[in-house]
């Protein structure tokens, strides 16, 4: 394994770790507003890390085709970084306009 391979593996592993956090987060968190935090952030970061890792792996054989493919992967990353916050924002906006009440500490303590 070359150095690039090790770096790529580490990046992909980090991305998968973030993805795992996101998946567990949207299961554990109490309400819809707080579930958006892992869904919006951890998934974006996971995608970023994993895709950068894969782009680095592609640079193993340095030809025009592989560099262009790595650039396309970077294009996806940029696209995700623009659209992911917007999608999160659209979902939370729909929730607020529908009048879903945010979960708070008081609401839980009041229920006890």
């Amino acid at each position, binding site marked *: 394994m070359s150095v690039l391979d090790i770096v790529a593996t580490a990046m992909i592993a980090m991305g998968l770790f973030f993805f795992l956090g996101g998946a567990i987060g949207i299961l554990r968190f109490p309400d819809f507003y707080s579930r958006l935090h892992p869904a919006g952030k951890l998934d974006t970061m996971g995608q970023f890390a994993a895709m950068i890792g894969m782009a680095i792996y592609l640079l193993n054989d340095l030809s025009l085709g592989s560099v262009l493919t790595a650039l396309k992967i970077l294009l996806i990353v940029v*696209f995700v970084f*623009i*659209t992911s*916050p*917007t999608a999160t*924002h*659209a979902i939370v*906006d729909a929730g607020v*306009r529908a009048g879903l009440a945010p979960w708070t500490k008081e609401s839980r303590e009041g229920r006890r």
Partner: protein
Amino acid sequence: MRAFALITVLMVGGLLFYGLPDFPDWGDPASPASTHLSPFYIEQGAADTHAPNVVTAVLAYYRGYDTMFEAAVIFSAGLACFFLLRTFRQKSIETRLYRHLPTGVTLRIEEGGKTPEGSDEFEPIDSHWVPYDMIINLTCRLIVPFVQLFALYVIAHGHYSPGGGFQGGVLFGAAIILYAISTDLRTAFKRLQEKAVMLLSALGVLIYAGTGVVCLVLGGNFLDYSFLAGILGVDAVMARSHGILIIEIGVGLAVMAVMVMLYYNLSSAGRHDEGL
């Protein structure tokens, strides 16, 4: 009447099941399709059409008839949606909102009031308003051109990468729908009118069938693109390649227009006054 329909369905279904055992097994390597047809496509595809992607060669050249009628089916789906949903009668809304453009004053007109319809100075506002959202609006303005460019890339590179008319048409239609979502339906109409959409959807199918007819006129079979070589000024193999590109463009136009037509009609329940 319903019992009659049920009996008909059951009978046709029974007939189909009766015919089922005569077919070769799914994925059977000894079936005629696997022994004769598939090797021919795989061996001859690239040499015949200069398209490395054999799926494109099969879809757009060897089985061009099927694809033409697929495009026709999509076109007729758009037509059906138009005929079922489109209504030209105005719904009676209790209250309407208009904005006076030179001053920015918003007028609220109760039921029965006189509406400033057809005036240039007044702009109607959705009664179930589309919430204005700066973030979504700006994001869509940033990415819509790139989604369109990507759609055109998918159409143009059907020979080399997975893609072609159907996928590219869906992406281009999605870009226009994204624009309509981010602003509102009337702003989208300013860029792509209903009449233009209808015209484009018909034009797409016409390009496809017209290519076949041109081949026929030039002395070949229907959709045999190698006879386009005289017009395009290239040899037969490249003529097939360019012929595939031409019909991909036709399919892309038809799919794009039908997607947009479905969105226009479904989101406004056929009235085309206010959408999502």
